[in-house]
């Protein structure tokens, strides 16, 4: 198996994804990612230099890419009280989190 993905790369990805891997989780993750990336390397067999990436499924299904915009009118959104009931920590109006800025 190739070593495309190193421990350092996995740690960098962990930072990007806001996921912390324990030392026990790191080695298996490196191994699994390498196995999967080896497998997906098969895609390099295909010459796609003249192929546009497909991002919007509506391109294919006959709807065309129709940018249907709704009228620019304000309307009630979610009920704040109902939403805040789900908050781990709140003062009723805001979501409370650990301090971001040290003064």
């Amino acid at each position, binding site marked *: 198996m190739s070593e495309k993905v190193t421990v350092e790369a996995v740690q960098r*990805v962990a930072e990007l994804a806001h*996921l912390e891997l324990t030392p026990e989780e790191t080695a298996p*993750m490196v191994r699994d*990612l390498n196995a999967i990336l080896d*497998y997906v390397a098969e895609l390099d067999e295909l010459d796609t230099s003249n192929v546009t990436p497909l991002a919007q*499924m509506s391109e294919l*299904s006959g*709807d065309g890419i129709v940018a249907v915009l709704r009228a620019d009118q304000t309307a009630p959104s979610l*009920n704040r009280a109902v939403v805040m009931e789900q908050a781990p920590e709140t003062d009723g109006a805001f979501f409370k*989190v650990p301090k971001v800025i040290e003064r």
Partner: protein
Amino acid sequence: MDVAETFTQKPMSLAALSAEIAAGRTKAADLAATYYERIEELNPRLNIYLSLTKERALAQASKIDAMAAKGNPLPPLAGIPVGIKDVLVVQGVPSTAGSKILQGYRPPYDCTAVARLEAAGAVLLGKTNCDEFAMGSSNENSAYGPVRNPVDPELVPGGSSGGSAAAVAANLAVAALGSDTGGSIRQPASFCGVVGVLPTYGRVSRYGLIAFASSLDRIGPLAANVRDAATLLGVIAGHDPNDATSSPAPVEDYATESDKPAAGLRIGVPAEYFADGLDPEVRAAVEKGIGALEAAGCTIKPISLPHTKYAVPTYYLVATAEASANLARFDGVRYGYRSADSGTLSAMYSHSRDEGFGAEVKRRIFLGTYALSAGYYDAYYLKAQRVRRLLAEEFLRAFAEVDAIVTPTSPFPAFKLGEKTGDPLAMYLADIYTVTASLAGICGVSVPCGATKTGLPVGMQVLARHFGESTAFRVARAVEAAGI
């Protein structure tokens, strides 16, 4: 059957049940109570339901009974007990997406598809178990324990909509809603011996589906027979202003369309789906199904879809990349699990996510983040998006020559719990026949098509072009009628 215990039971058809309810011979409230009794008896063993919505169900059932008593015309799903996969939100009802990170979460809004079922009179029994965030092919990635296949409880029901498929197979619901991103309705339907529908991308609103991969996710019905599945699709399909990707294409009367004979339809059989790795008993059963289609007057045409082998790697780059973005919202701030005593905001994010997500979810977030990161985006994500176009165009060319394409739904029947959990890649390869349709946006149905010698269900997958659900249903009905 060779198994020690089995819990399968065929639900009554929608037509029969609706007649009973309309005539007042069966009260919707009694029917719901009967289902709850059966759930109480079987759920400890099968782990199909994560939560029950008894008050809501009985209130709806009473409403229906009152309408029936007055002789008022009843809506199309009046009194019909349904299960809802736990990635579909219902206001005020626990929705976990099979994850610890949403344990206790009660959504503040309703999934459009679920709201449409209820508006049609359906009785919501509860939320069904699933792989965490719909990521899995066996329902073994649920944070709340695996679902057991009612056919044989030592086997997996398939995934990620394992709970919904098992609910119908065990008659713990007459029908259910699931979601399908890479095969998650079709494959468990085939493992459990029920019908599962993959609607065209955009056919059913995704509003209220906890997102996994936004260009792949679809909500769809599971039922005990093709006509019922078609009826359910007709109820949930249609444009929704809350989903910018939902299609304005008109909704056909799928149930009536499915009554039309399949004679005269051209059926493509792609060589690539009948090659190495296909279990010989699955092949034999599906070939019998193809024989039945020929006997029904269809023209069978061998075709080739040469890019098929690139579908799994393409899928696991596109889906994981999109998942890494969609799951970024689970950060402990606004809802769901927040890790205690984190000190800093950054630590709160990573501890909450690390403690709340399971191993497979983390693996996919890692893979997706890597595929999107600077220096790798072109080689992985964009490359996959280009191959995706090639796969989709290959289907479009095929559908110029044939009306439907039939394949096995899965290369093998239901496997034993624990058999594939040690090797993520082996599990991913279980999706080999289903991810192609997912990537192309086309529609399909998995219909029961015989069984192995030990009685394990086999499913045939019927694929049709975008918005060609009616054709898929016609072909599926013909296979069903043959009673393979």
